[in-house]
Structures are given as structure tokens and as C-alpha cells.
């Protein structure tokens, strides 16, 4: 077990605590999807209402055929400190994804399909973006059962009313 340097309560609790967050997931890579899922799960753990809106390639996270095959982007990802030509090698993305998944499992961070199910079970609502669904020629049956509905950007703003919006 590691001991964090400091994990106490914030110095001062804000006057207006956050009671609702609406998180947009726009990227389809592993590192693009996890932060949003951690934020959504963390919100529910604090008793904060949470909506998650999947758009563009972020929809892969709720796509039945794809959500178990999300990979780390190894090209054009300077954070990996990997030469671009090496990142493009066949199998590199799978290798880095496997390594990262192993580290996450150690921290008890679930794989994406299980994480999404956990978040839905926690009472967060999941939505797919209508414009993206039409653009990629998808429909309701392409998505996992936990998805509440396919909504427009206008619906999204209405449902986000009174809360914070986080774009990832």
C-alpha cells in the first residue's frame, strides 16, 4: 500500500458545492475515454448527479462491437515519450494498451465495458450524440443497453442545466 503525501479535506469547502456534472466524451482512444469515466464515477461517489454524453469517436466507449477493443494512441501522443516511427509499428498500440491495462487493474480501475456498467449502475445517465450517430450511420442497437437515449445537442444543454459541463 502506498501512502499519498496528502489526502486531507480541501482547505476550505466551497460555498456552492457542485451538485451535477455533464461530461462530454469526444475521443475514442483509451487515454481519451478513461478520464471522463473516472470523473463520472468519482462524481457519483461524492453523491453528485452525473450525465455522460458520448460524441464522435467517444461513442466507441458505448458501442457494443468496439468498447472492449479501445486502444492507447501510440502515434501522435508525445506523452508516451515513444519515437513516432516506433509508435506506428504493428502491434505497438496493443502492447502499450496491455501494459496500461495491467497498471490500471492493479489500482482496481476496471476495463472500459465494466467501468461503463458500474457508472450506469451508480445512477449516472449515458447518452449518445444524435449528430454523430447519424454521421456514422449507427442506431440504438449498436449501443450497449445502459445507454439511456440518443439526444440532440439541444437536449444535452437542457439536461445539463444547473450543473457543470466538462469536455474531454
Amino acid at each position, binding site marked *: *500500500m502506498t501512502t499519498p503525501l496528502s489526502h486531507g*479535506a480541501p482547505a476550505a469547502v466551497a460555498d456552492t458545492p457542485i451538485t451535477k456534472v455533464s461530461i462530454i466524451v469526444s475521443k475514442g482512444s483509451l487515454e481519451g475515454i478513461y478520464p471522463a469515466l473516472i470523473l463520472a464515477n468519482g462524481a457519483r*461517489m461524492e453523491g453528485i448527479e452525473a450525465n455522460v454524453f458520448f460524441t464522435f469517436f467517444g461513442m466507441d466507449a458505448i458501442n457494443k462491437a468496439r468498447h472492449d477493443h479501445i486502444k492507447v494512441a501510440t502515434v501522435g501522443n508525445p506523452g508516451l515519450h515513444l519515437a513516432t516511427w516506433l509508435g506506428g509499428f504493428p502491434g505497438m498500440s496493443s502492447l502499450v494498451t496491455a501494459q496500461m491495462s495491467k497498471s490500471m487493474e492493479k489500482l482496481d480501475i476496471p476495463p472500459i465495458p465494466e467501468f461503463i456498467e458500474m457508472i450506469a449502475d451508480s445512477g449516472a445517465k449515458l447518452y449518445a450524440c444524435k449528430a454523430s450517430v447519424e454521421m456514422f450511420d449507427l442506431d440504438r442497437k449498436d449501443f450497449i443497453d445502459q445507454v439511456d437515449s440518443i439526444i440532440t445537442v439541444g437536449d444535452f444543454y437542457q439536461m445539463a442545466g444547473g450543473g457543470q459541463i466538462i469536455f474531454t
Partner: protein
Amino acid sequence: MPVLTAVARTPEGFLENVGDWDKELALELAVESGIPTLTDRHWLVVDYMRTTFLAKGDGPTIRTLGKESGVAIKELYLLFPKGPAKLAAKIAGIPKPHGCI
């Protein structure tokens, strides 16, 4: 005189000393957290939190809690609507969970 006023607590209301806890105190902590009574299902979670903490030095993640406490995630949120891991930890008299998951 409620016993809760006699024990040391963090600014967020968690017990400072795990040893101060007893079942009476748990009930008071529950009421204060908006849970008027502790059912057998609540106790299952609270006991699991406390046992895990005493064995491992940290409370379980929400994932482990859902898998191993005997109460699944959906029901955990019905029992502890304001956050199962955090509230169950408080009621179990253990420190606030440190992890992000």
C-alpha cells in the same frame, strides 16, 4: 448526551480514531448522514468496510465493494445515495477512502 459529541472527528466528520467506534456510534453517524435506520443490508456493507480497513489499512474501492461486500453497485447507491464508499466508511468509523475509484 449523544456519544458522537464526545469523540474526535475530522472536519468532514470522519472519526479520528478507529478504536472509538461502536455500533451505537454507527447509528448516530448514519442519522447524521441522512440514513435514518441501518438495515441488515447497510450493516453488511459497513461491516465489510471496517473489516477490510482493519485488515489492509485502507477501505475498499467502489469496484471491490460492489463485487465482494455482497451488495451490488446499484443497491449500494440505493442504500447510501450520497456516495456509498464515503458514507459507509464514515459510518464504519474508518478514514475517508483515499483512492479515486
